[in-house]
């Protein structure tokens, strides 16, 4: 199986000499094509920093990150932009749709930035919309949509460029439970039908239970890793809860 992402001894520190905070302290892991991987951890564990570094929005202070055989820690700013638009798809907690653009235009934006020919754009946007079942909101503006619809439009924007990997940061964080479930079903579908590689950061056990593999991070280090295997989602959820209760904050000290 092809390795899409290789993280090797990655480090990220903030602050200057004498007052250094290690946000990430030597994390290594691999993600292969078609994987649906979750990253869990408490607030301040470093999971968002990890995601920002992988998504090339932030830079690492040590180690390497290789995406699709390309070491992103060594790319120039200009190449990084090109890399992001060609290889990565983003889904954010607060949707991050442009409120002045319609759903169609929001999705198309990812393609126009790639300088995709106009004739192709319409076709591809409609394809992505069909997959996420949002054809009927394509003409609407974000303020006319529900939270779930907005997040699915954001997801469509992420997959429309057919990226090597989709990065999702708390995608269900701003959704009610019904919309969240629908969203996660869409992710599952994207993963299974399109063989999309998804890396999702979350602190919510229910959301995480849709993943196939979960990495737990604590204080900037890899703490634990569990694989769903053939388990049902419900059993997997219980397994996650067990790990979280050990991991969870300072509870481990109490135990």
């Amino acid at each position, binding site marked *: 199986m092809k390795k899409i992402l290789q993280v090797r001894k990655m480090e990220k520190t903030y602050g200057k000499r004498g007052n250094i905070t290690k946000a990430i302290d030597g994390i290594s892991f691999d993600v292969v094509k078609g994987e649906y991987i979750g990253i869990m951890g408490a607030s301040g564990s470093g999971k968002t920093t990890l995601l920002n570094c992988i998504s090339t929005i932030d830079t690492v202070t040590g180690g390497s990150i290789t995406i699709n055989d390309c070491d992103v820690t060594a790319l120039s700013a200009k190449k990084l932009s090109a890399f992001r638009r060609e290889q990565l798809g983003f889904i954010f907690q607060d949707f991050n749709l442009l409120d002045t653009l319609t759903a169609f235009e929001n999705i*198309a934006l990812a393609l126009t930035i790639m300088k995709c020919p106009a004739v192709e754009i319409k076709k591809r946007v409609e394809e992505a919309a069909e997959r996420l079942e949002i054809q009927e909101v394509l003409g609407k503006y974000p303020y006319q949509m529900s939270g779930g619809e907005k997040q699915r439009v954001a997801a469509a924007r992420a997959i429309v460029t057919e990226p090597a990997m989709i990065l999702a940061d708390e995608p269900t964080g701003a959704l009610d439970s019904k919309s969240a479930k629908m969203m996660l079903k869409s992710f599952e579908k994207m993963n299974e039908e399109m063989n999309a590689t998804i890396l999702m950061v979350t602190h919510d056990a229910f959301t995480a239970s849709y993943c196939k593999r979960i990495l737990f991070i604590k204080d900037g280090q890899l703490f634990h890793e569990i694989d769903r295997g053939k388990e049902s989602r419900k059993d997997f959820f219980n397994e996650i809860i067990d790990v979280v209760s050990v991991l969870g904050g300072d509870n481990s000290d109490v135990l």
Partner: protein
Amino acid sequence: MYFKLARKNVRKSIKDFAIYFLTLVFGVCVFYMFNSLDAQQELMAFTESRHETMVALTQILAYFSVFVSVVLGFLIVYANGFLIRRRKQELGMYMLLGMEKWKIARVLIYETLIIGVVALGVGLGLGVLLSQLMSVFTARLFEVNMTGFHFVFSLSGAAKAVMNFGLIFMISVLFGTISISRYQLIDLFQASKKNEELKLRGMKVSVVIFILSVLCLGSAYGLILKNGLLNMGWMFTASILLGSVGTFLFFMSLSGFLLRTVQANPKLYLKNLNMFVLRQINSKINTTYVSMTIVCLVLLLTIGTFSSGMGISMAVSTDLAAAAPYDYSITQFHSENDPEEISILNQINERFGEEAYLEAAEIREYDSGLTLRALMELSGEELDYEEMAEIHAPMIKLSELNALRRMNDQPGIALEEGKFFLVCTNGDFKSFFGNLFAVTQTLELGGMSFELQSEELIQTELETGMRYGNMGVFVLRDEEFPEAALALQTLNLNFENDEQANAFRAGMSIWFADAETRPFHRAIAKEELYEAGVSTRTILSFLAIYLGFVFLITCAAILALQQLSEAADNRERYELLRKIGAEKKMVNQSIFFQIFLYFMMPLGLAIVHSIVGLKVANDVIRLLGDMDIVGNLVITAFFILVIYGGYFLATYLGVKAIVAPESGGMKE
């Protein structure tokens, strides 16, 4: 403690304040410069009449300064309200921490005070420095010599600036306090979270409104072109109204129309960030079309003020020499019941003696019996001088013309038997007679038929003070001169030196007051004409520059403030664009294009308006003399380019610094 908070706030938000601050500095600086003329005149050697002009100019500038204060006051109040609205969240935080509203108001008052005092100080300093330079310019316009150069400071100008701007700041603080007292904590705190209610107009409606606006503007242009500028009838009013409404509708629908047009072409619409830029502009213009309209109309006023002010002043100055060929002209009109003919020269000699002047020539104009209407019928060409159609063209004797030409250092002209020629120096009439003589060269003058000797029109001014030149005088041989009624007598005099001229003028002004015995209706000295010209020119130039500058910085500052304050909102949008992989160059281009369009739209329409307006105004100015329209437009364009362009550039750099920091840091 509140003062400290205010000081820190000002320092922190210096980026947002910079353009506002600079505009205040410019405002104060210009205000001082144009109100400090009293100090500048210390540096110049004035004649008495120039001094009077200076007094008049100072007064006129003082009147207009009230108007300028109102304009700048509007800008400052608007800008302050704008800045307060932008800081809702920060103010909400103060309230959440338990600060009372009046204490928040106090912080804002301190902030305004700090900015105001610093801007006043810097503006006055700059104004004092620049007014030293300006005195050179003033002296040149007045055509007076500088007596010596030393540092000047106008206490009254400075006091006026401090008082005016102090009052404006106070009013703006008052408005700010009122607006704060109205805010509710929940609104303040959720200001940024609140979903922006986008008022999107239906595309079809936009197209209809756009077509309507074009129709309005078209008919406004048509009406004003047909009506002209001097005739204040219903057409004039309708044109102004239609023009304003058309402009308003234009900005209301432009962005929607533009969006619609570009959307129809997917290749263009779905290219790079075009879609994003157009939507951005569309969303903004939908809420700012009122200010767009005002900015556009004020820009029109600026272009109009500046170029026609400059135009008139140049027309006045270039024609001064041509309009005053003789040192003194005395004119007597004759009507039918006043046929007695007394030589003016004889009477002058009787009163002042022959040694009162150097040389003299008298011209008598007789009624040729030909009306302008008759001439127009002959040539088949309609001249736009309806009010003059019944005036009879004059004719004069060759010997008198030649005497006058000798005074002018022009050679004498010989005339064959049965022939005539024409003296004409007015531009419009020169071409009229040129066309007339192409049709016929035989004219009935004083009941007798004469033939044209030469198509060349003789260039001799018959008196001093005819600014438009003379409109055509037929010249006949003395021996063949027909019996005709005397219409007008003119005596032209030249003097040996200034002393003689001044003495004569003094004597004439006493005589002029005595309506019973004086043998003339009009007396003009070259010097007086010159003074009047210099005075008109100086006053117009000063006003054009003063008002033009103030209008321009006001417009540019409003646009800049709107863009800069939007920048904070747009920051997230641009950050998203970069996150999903838009290159910095692409993002910068879209910022540039957005601001460029925002600045260009009102200017563009104002330019179209002013092309029409100047065409009309030009017809009026041309009456005062030929003017160099291209030259004036170039100067105006340069002036606008530097100031408006400067604001545009500053805004672009400011917005770029806010939404796309150079450091490239995209941390949380």
